[in-house]
Every structure is written in structure tokens, then in C-alpha cells.
């Protein structure tokens, strides 16, 4: 049995070596994707282009605007003299946000007292809502900056300190770098993309060429076929794992707080799932095109979106949350992020390990069952 599997593995490697284009993609694609995702996949909202209309031109209005100018969240791209001018800026996308400080702003502040601010001066902020997420976050920043401005005004008047003070500690990611969250996730996603795609072709390609029948009349067993097809790609996947971890740690300086060994072990269990998935797709497809389309559209993309990679699962409707429990990527994301950022171990992550392991065995069994040699 071992000889037969070895022969199959050896053959797969020769084929891979003779396909330089594919080989290059297998190595280059993950690195390219990781760098791209590592840098780009940030949901942080920074450098929001802001247009300002200062209708007051008083020291107070300049104080407020200065707060925005010095904030990393906003870039003041333009100053308009009339409020009506901001419309064009927002329409063309030149600015996402417009802030209009009314005339009399400074005077009203000097008149008001913190205890009874009957008609406080009001600044108007207009957001381009087409990018709902960024706008929402940017508006929250505006509230925050104006809140700080308020506090400093109150302190100036000796209004005393606020009653409650939140001492906030952010665990795991004190600088709130979304990269620290995304990059470990990229590891999970890349593995899925590379290995599931490769293996989804593994059997169907032989079916298209006609060699599958030839294999099926040899004493090569179902599980031997699955193993022989799986191991070479598992190796390729594992190389990708090491590559991605190295880039994440040394290039992106993502903290790796937990055990590397546990991470590698988890990757292996996860590979079982992704490879099994690819093989399963391979067994239900009759052409390579079908296999690729099925893998990408029915599996990869839905998983990508529903796993919590970008969109938090806790924000989804309950029904969808139940659906996500069927996605192995979900569990691996918890594991990678847990190991990287929280440094937690098996005592906490065992449910995810168990879920993933069960999933992997199930899909492999399904693939083996489907690859049942006779139609």
C-alpha cells in the first residue's frame, strides 16, 4: 500500500515540476496576496478627506479646525468660503466630509456657560454616505474630537472634572492596528484558496485526460488515491504556511504570542479540511472549469464572507450565525487569531480544534465515498 501511494505522490510532484507556470503561481501568489492584503486589508479609517467652511474666522473656530488638522483621522483637503460650495466637493468625491462652522461661533461660546447652555453653537457636518462604513466611523471621530473640544472648554471655565472616567485598556492589540487582526486571517484565507483550488483540479484533471480510468483499474484503493493526491498538496500548503507565518512575523511585525508548534499543528488539521474540500469538489465535477468555478463561487467566496474574516460574525443575523458554524475557516480564524494575538493555548482552543478535525475527517470521507470508483 505504501508503495502505491509513494508512486502517486512522486508522479504528482513530477507533474507539478513540469508545470512551471503553475508552480510559480503557487509560490508567488500567496506572497503577493499576503502583501496586498496585509497592507490594504485595513478597515481603519484614516486620512478622511475633509473640506472646511469657516464662517466665523475667530480664534475659537481656528482652535476647533486645528484639532481636525492635527488629527491623523482627517486630512483637510480644501477650505471653501461659502457653504454651498461643498456640494461639488462631495459630489465628485474630492472630499468625504464637510464641516461648516457658523458665523458667531466664537461669540456664542464666550456667552455660554456649562451649566445652562440653552442654545449652544452648532457646527454642521455633512458626510458622503455612499461609503456607509467609512462615513459612520468618520462621524464618530468627529463626535470624539468635538467632545474633546467641549471638555477642554469646560475645564477652561473650571467646571470641574467629569463624574465618570473610563480607564480603558485594550488587550492584545493596544494600538488598535487592524493589520494585527487581518494578517493572521490572511494565513487562513490563503491556505484555503491555494490548496482547495489546487486539489479541486487534482482528480478532475485526470478524468478529463482519461487517466482516471487507468488508475481505477489498478489495485490503487480509494483511500490510497485520496492520500496520494492529498499529501503532495499538503506539503505545498505547509510550505505556504511557513512562508506566510514568516512574512507576518518578520515583515508585518504581527506579534506571535502563542506557541508556534500549536499553530503549525492547527494548520495541519486545517489543511485536512481545505484539501478534503478541494478533493470533494474534484469528485463532483466533470471538467476543470466546473471544478474551479464550483470551488471559487460556491465554496471559497461564501466561506470568505461568512467566516468572520472581514465581517464580524457577531454582527450577522442569528440564522446566518448558525450557518457559519459549518465553515471550517471560521474555527481556524479563531485559532490563528487566538494564538497570534492572545497567546492562548489548547485549553481554550480545543473546541475549535475538535470542530475542525471532525469537519476534515467528514469531508475526506465524503470525497473518498464520492470517488468510489464505479459510477
Amino acid at each position, binding site marked *: 500500500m505504501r508503495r502505491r501511494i509513494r508512486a502517486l505522490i512522486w508522479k504528482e510532484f513530477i507533474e507539478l515540476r513540469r508545470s512551471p507556470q503553475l508552480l510559480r503561481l503557487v509560490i508567488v501568489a500567496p506572497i503577493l496576496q499576503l502583501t496586498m492584503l496585509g497592507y*490594504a486589508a485595513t478597515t481603519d479609517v484614516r*486620512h478622511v478627506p475633509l473640506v472646511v467652511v469657516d464662517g466665523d474666522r475667530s480664534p475659537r473656530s481656528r482652535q476647533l479646525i486645528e484639532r481636525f488638522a492635527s488629527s491623523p483621522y482627517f486630512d483637510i483637503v480644501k477650505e471653501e468660503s461659502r457653504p454651498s460650495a461643498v456640494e461639488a466637493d462631495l459630489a465628485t468625491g474630492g472630499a468625504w466630509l464637510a464641516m461648516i462652522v457658523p458665523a458667531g461661533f466664537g461669540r456664542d461660546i464666550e456667552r455660554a456657560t456649562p451649566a445652562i447652555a440653552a442654545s449652544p453653537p452648532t457646527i454642521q457636518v455633512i458626510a458622503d454616505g455612499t*461609503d456607509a462604513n467609512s462615513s459612520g466611523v468618520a462621524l464618530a471621530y468627529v463626535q470624539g474630537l468635538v467632545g474633546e473640544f467641549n471638555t477642554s472648554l469646560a475645564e477652561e471655565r473650571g467646571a470641574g472634572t467629569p463624574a465618570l472616567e473610563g480607564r480603558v485598556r485594550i488587550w*492584545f492589540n493596544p494600538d488598535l492596528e487592524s493589520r494585527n487582526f487581518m494578517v493572521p486571517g490572511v494565513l487562513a484565507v490563503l491556505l484555503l484558496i491555494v490548496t482547495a*483550488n489546487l486539489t479541486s483540479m487534482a482528480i478532475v484533471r485526470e478524468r478529463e485526460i482519461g487517466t482516471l480510468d487507468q488508475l481505477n483499474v489498478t489495485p490503487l484503493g480509494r483511500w490510497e488515491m485520496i492520500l496520494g493526491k492529498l499529501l503532495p498538496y499538503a506539503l505545498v500548503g505547509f510550505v505556504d504556511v511557513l512562508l506566510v507565518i514568516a512574512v507576518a512575523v518578520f515583515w508585518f511585525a504581527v506579534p506571535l504570542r502563542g506557541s508556534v508548534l500549536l499553530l503549525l499543528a492547527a494548520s495541519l488539521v486545517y489543511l485536512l479540511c481545505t484539501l478534503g474540500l478541494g478533493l470533494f469538489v474534484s469528485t463532483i465535477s466533470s471538467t476543470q472549469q466546473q471544478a474551479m468555478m464550483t470551488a471559487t463561487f460556491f465554496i471559497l467566496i*461564501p466561506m470568505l464572507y461568512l467566516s468572520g474574516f472581514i465581517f464580524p460574525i457577531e*454582527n450577522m443575523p442569528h440564522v446566518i450565525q448558525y450557518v457559519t458554524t459549518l465553515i471550517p475557516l471560521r474555527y481556524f480564524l479563531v485559532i490563528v487569531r487566538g494564538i497570534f494575538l492572545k497567546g492562548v493555548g489548547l485549553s481554550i482552543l480545543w473546541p475549535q480544534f475538535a470542530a475542525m478535525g471532525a469537519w476534515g475527517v467528514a469531508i475526506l470521507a465524503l470525497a473518498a465515498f464520492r470517488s468510489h470508483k464505479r459510477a
Partner: protein
Amino acid sequence: MRSAWAVAIKELRQIRRDRRTLTILIFVPTFFLFLYGYALNFDIRHVAMAIEDRDDSSWSRDLIAAFQRSTYFDVVGETLSDREAAAAIDRGQARVVLVVPSGFGRDIDRGETADVQVIIDGDNANTATTVLGYVTAVLRLSSTTMPGRPVAQMVNVEPRVWYNPELRSTVFLVPGLIAFISMITAVVSTALSIVREKERGTMEQIRMAPVSTLSFVAGKALPYLVLSFFGAMAIIVAAMIFFDLPMRGSWLALSAIVIVFLIGALGTGLVVSTIADTQQVAFQAAALIAMLPTLILSGFIFPLASMPIVLQYISAIVPARYFLVALRGIVLKGLDLTAVWPSIGALAIYAVAVLGVSAVRLGRR
């Protein structure tokens, strides 16, 4: 042109036979639309909160009640020990822990500033930032109910949101969705359909027939252009029906921009097909140069302005970026063609460039 027509008819027949591809062309847009419409959003509600109340005074209970009352937090555990609180975060059972220290009530009664400790799981920076905002808001609100404190803000902010007043994600994601799906169907289908003919050797057959390369390519691309065009329009109409997407601009402008974009996408597929020798490579390459940048570098999900400068420059060659700006401009802002001309211009340049490259590469053989 008649031979281009023959190729186009053949291609359409093949598409019709291939049930799964057809299913994908229909399933994918629908799936995404409903996914975006119902499932995916960054709106954060029901943040799991654990509470460690070491004071257990009426003030501390008031504060906890204030958190419970807010729609943002779900209190999942109360009066925990330090260790339990830490474990709750480690396990992901709680995203935030509120620690009310002993002496909290006393400080308030004395009119001093009372500290509360807030521990936030920062793994997802985006969520954490929002949660932090919520916590601050609840604290500020509670603060005004405490004795002898300022009751009002000195300066008010009056926020107004244009084009999408409720800040609904759907409205913002649908244009991105169209870009993504069109890019996939156009690039992948064109590339695969040509490489498949290469692989099977039918390409030689067609080359022997009196069909010029140009008609061949035109014939290949035409069905996908038509399919993708109707696909894009169908998404818009469905989004209008199911998710109240406003359509503020002209349909003519919309069609124009969609077609220019699709031509560029088909051209990209052609370029891929001239590079790749096998379907597998073609698919991987298409995913790498078309799908990924469209998803990541177009401003579809991740805001471009927050990216490093280098990536912002790279995104300049991603057609979806311009398409999104133009599409959002036309659909949501009601701009006309003259207002979006820079985007159309960029898309046209891209289309000409990729068609040029593929023509050169096809001609070389």
C-alpha cells in the same frame, strides 16, 4: 463580422449547455446581493460585555443598568473575579469587561471623579474602536445624571449624511458588488473559454478556418459582454426592488459606464488567455490579477485613503476603482456623464491598453 457572429453563437450554445456555469452566473449575483443585504455589515450591536462589580453600591448598579439599557451591550456575566474576566475575553465569550472598583459609589457621593476600568478585546481593531466609542458614550451620558455635573455640551455637532442618510451598507456595497461580479464573469469566462480551446486543440481548428483573430476574439467576447451587462443591470434592479437602492442618475449614463468597464474586463481576460497555457493557470492568474485587486484595491470594502501611498498608486491601475467612483456617482449621487468623465476616461484608457496588449500578443503567434 459574420464569422465573429458564428463564433458568438457557438459560444452561447456552449454556455447554455454548461448548466453549472450558468447556475454560477445566476447564483453568484443573487447570493451576494442577499448576503450584503442581510448578513454582512460593520454595524456593531449586542457587544458581549462581562461585568466585575467590586463595589456593589446603588451607583455601581445604576451604571451597570445604564449599560444594560443601551442597545449596544449584552451583559453576559456579572460579578466575576479577575481570572474569570480574563478567561471570558480569552475564550471570546466577552468582547469587553467593565470593572467597577470598590469605592466607586463613595467617590461619586463626594463629588470626585470615579474611575471605572474598561478592558476591550482589541483583536479586531475596527470593532474595538467602535466598542470604545459606545463605552465612552454611555459613560458620558451616565455622567450627566450624577450630582453637580455640567448638564450640556458647549458645542453641538449636527451631523447630516448625504446620498445615504441611514448609512446602509447595502447601498454602498451594491456598486462594489457589480464591479466584482462583472470582473469575475468577464475575466474568468473569457480567459477560460479561450484557453480551453487551446488545451483541446480546437483553437488550431478555428485558426484553419477563415476567421480572423479579431473576429474570433470579438465572437468570444460578445456573449460574455452581453451576459455580464445584463447581470450588472439585474443586480441594480434587484437591489432597487429588495433593498431600496436609489437610482438617481440616468440609465443611459449607467449603461455607458458599465459597457466601458466590461470591455476593459474582457480585455483583461484576453491578456490572461494569451499568457496561460492551461485552464488551471488561467484561472489562478485571473484570480490574482482581476478578482483580488477588485476586492481589495478598489475601495470596495477597504477604504483606499487609509492604505499606504504605494498601494494607493497601485490602485490607480485597478479599473474597478474608477468604476466604483463613477457607479456610486451615477446611482447614488445622480451625477451625469460630464461629472464622471475622469473615471470614464480612465476606464477607456485601461480598455484600450489591455486590448492593445492582447492584440499584440495574439498577433505574435
